[in-house]
């Protein structure tokens, strides 16, 4: 029953494949070097990961060309991507996939559009993302600033025109297709028809973009928002595992460093002050592993609770791990030429992404009936 909190053999094999690829193609020095180029996402790496290993179509049913796997496997991929702060649109594409899978079920005649897109995602031909600010939490009543013509929309598949702006979208730059929630419905837009402007982003390994629509052609995908919250919830679950991976990597790097760095004639890792902080971090990470696994496994209302718990806990642990990584490396950890800052920026941004910890606690308060007043 509680084996769901462990990793299966299949999952460990998938992990090893992703880890090998990242060790080979995404050492931190090249991740850092890429951040100051015009192409902050790595298309070759994404191709190898997405179609080579099949991470792009992980959640897509086998009859549509995917792997027919679950969020559990996706979470294992995310752990490894977190360890490498890898610049690929895995998370954004995963949320878009979840949205399409949910839209396929709503049965208002747009299933064919969803299926077609899912097939193309699984084959690696297309990368999709949801055009929504990356800070939005799953329980947000999202309105946005994109208007639709015709309005109100008909239920059956039809073309429409979108005008307006969505800020701080993650993974939009390398995407081919945008899924645009606007005014309560969700539309499909070709990325080449929108204006996508990368912005200067705190997390340099997951660059955000502002997306502008100006009477842009679009196709109805879903008449209501349900698939959106489902997608964001899945994204938040998987993000917790990414945060776990990041925290593990920070701890590992730091432990290695304090074993070899000598001051006052001793390895600094022999001082109890540092030891106790690292041990506390290890305890937190062991807990993060349990809650992240649970968030990737739970369903229904239990999933909502599990995801809120995981987002609160893993956000804090990843930030703590990255902050300790900087501090315990001393001066070198504060420089540009050491990976610590990549982790710090990813951790802090991820803690805000898909809802801040405070936001998830508020949601949890509703779910477990602990009202504020």
């Amino acid at each position, binding site marked *: 029953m509680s084996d769901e909190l462990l990793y299966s053999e299949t999952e460990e094999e998938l992990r090893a494949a992703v880890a090998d690829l990242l060790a080979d193609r995404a050492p931190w020095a090249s991740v850092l070097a890429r951040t100051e180029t015009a192409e902050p996402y790595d298309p070759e790496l994404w191709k190898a990961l997405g179609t080579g290993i099949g991470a792009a179509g992980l959640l897509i049913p086998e009859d549509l060309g995917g792997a027919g796997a679950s969020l559990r496997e996706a979470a294992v991929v995310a752990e490894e991507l977190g360890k490498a702060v890898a610049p690929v649109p895995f998370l954004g594409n995963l949320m878009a996939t979840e949205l399409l899978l949910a839209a396929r079920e709503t049965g208002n005649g747009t299933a064919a559009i969803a299926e077609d897109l899912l097939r193309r995602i699984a084959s690696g031909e297309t990368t999709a993302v949801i055009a929504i600010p990356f800070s939005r939490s799953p329980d947000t009543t999202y309105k946005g600033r994109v208007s639709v013509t015709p309005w109100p929309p008909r239920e059956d598949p039809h073309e429409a025109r979108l005008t307006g702006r969505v800020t701080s979208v993650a993974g939009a730059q390398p995407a081919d297709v945008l899924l645009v929630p606007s005014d309560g419905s969700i539309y499909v837009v070709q990325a080449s028809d929108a204006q996508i402007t990368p912005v200067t982003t705190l997390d340099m390994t997951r660059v955000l973009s502002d997306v502008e629509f100006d009477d842009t052609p679009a196709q109805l995908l879903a008449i209501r928002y349900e698939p959106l919250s489902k997608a964001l919830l899945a994204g938040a679950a998987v993000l917790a595992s990414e945060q776990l991976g990041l925290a593990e990597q920070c701890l590992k790097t730091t432990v290695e460093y304090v074993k070899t760095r000598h001051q006052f004639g001793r390895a600094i890792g*022999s001082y109890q002050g540092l030891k106790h902080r690292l041990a506390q971090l290890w*305890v937190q990470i062991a807990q993060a592993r349990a809650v992240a696994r649970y968030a990737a496994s739970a369903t229904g209302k239990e999933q909502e609770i599990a995801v809120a718990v995981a987002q609160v806990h893993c956000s804090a642990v990843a930030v703590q791990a990255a902050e300790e990584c900087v501090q315990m490396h001393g001066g070198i950890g504060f420089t540009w030429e050491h990976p610590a800052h990549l982790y710090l920026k990813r951790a802090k941004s991820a803690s805000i992404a898909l809802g801040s910890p405070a936001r998830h*606690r508020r949601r949890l308060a509703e779910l477990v009936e602990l009202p504020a007043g």
Partner: protein
Amino acid sequence: MQPLNTQHDLENRIHDFLATHDPGATSKLDFLRARFDAGLAWLHYPPGLGGLGLPRDQQPIAEKAFAAAGAPDNEPRRIGIGLGMAAPTILGFGSEEQKQRWLRPLWCGEEVWCQLFSEPGAGSDLAALATRAVRDGDDWIVSGQKVWTSMAHEARWAILVTRTDPDVPKHQGMTYFVLDMTAPGVEVRPLRQMTGEAEFNEVFLTDVRIPDSQRLGAVGEGWKVAQTTLMNERVAIGGGASPRESGMIGVLAQSWRDNEKLRDPSLHDRLLTLWVAAEAARLTAQRLSAQLAAGQPGPEGSAAKYAFATLNQQISGLELELLGEEALRYDEWTMRRPDTVDFVGRSPGYRYLRAKGNSIEGGTSEILLNIIAERVLGLPGEIRTDKDVAWKDLPR
């Protein structure tokens, strides 16, 4: 007897046993003795000593079957030290005669055991202990003071570590005994704690005679024997699955739900933060159980105890802040002698005070963090100056 190859075989064996031993028609002690003699007590123990040499993870099957049949249990909480610490040590280091003498009445709950390890001068640093044992013919004569002894006032037997050679480094000069708590020279005094009650005892030993036949392990090997005892303690403290909102967080959450007046919105975020911490600790314990069941024992036991202590202290501290006036009052300072800790049944102030002991008893939080840092993370140990010095020359 047939070998037991499947869960089904085991269930059949228990079924057969119950067919001939009706729990309703047998006295409790007779039933437990019969269960022991049938090898259905602790299944992983060897045949003849209450077990069948089965894997540890079969035990829940037996417990479930006996409970379903309404069979009496051996009150495991009351004899926890015997079951968890004394028994594995006797099994590991005792002679055949010693095992035969002690294990059956121990498991059946006829004889309660306690543990005489800690001393006023040797807490975290157990190997510094000073209780002297001097050889005298076939006996040893033991004098010293032990402390933090649960159940000493009810125990028939104690496991005891002593110093037999003060002239060698501290880890080398210790010897391990079983002490008859009714022997002359054993004095048990209650040790009152800040909650007002006395769960523990101080035990004063004055020229107590212990026959050499009650020694466990070789002379000078007490440290090694004690390690077995302590390792089993940590496994026992470790994991276990429990439902959501078990323990203190459940009390706090219920109090929040029940008393709309007390819901200070500025404490809401902290309440939820602790709720999440408690849920994370719970899922982690559950994951640990699953790992153990899957045969992947991890070092998370120390972490679980550390997290439990920290959480209990934070939750009970917030509870008092939340309650305001009610928290200024207390239920009862009278000196009592409880057998177990009742976190839920007593007042919020009691929870707050008693939780302070959680980070001290059974390994301080500082020692647990040291263990994680050194044994799990592989960080270098402190520089030690006490390892090669004769015990008698150590600073204290």
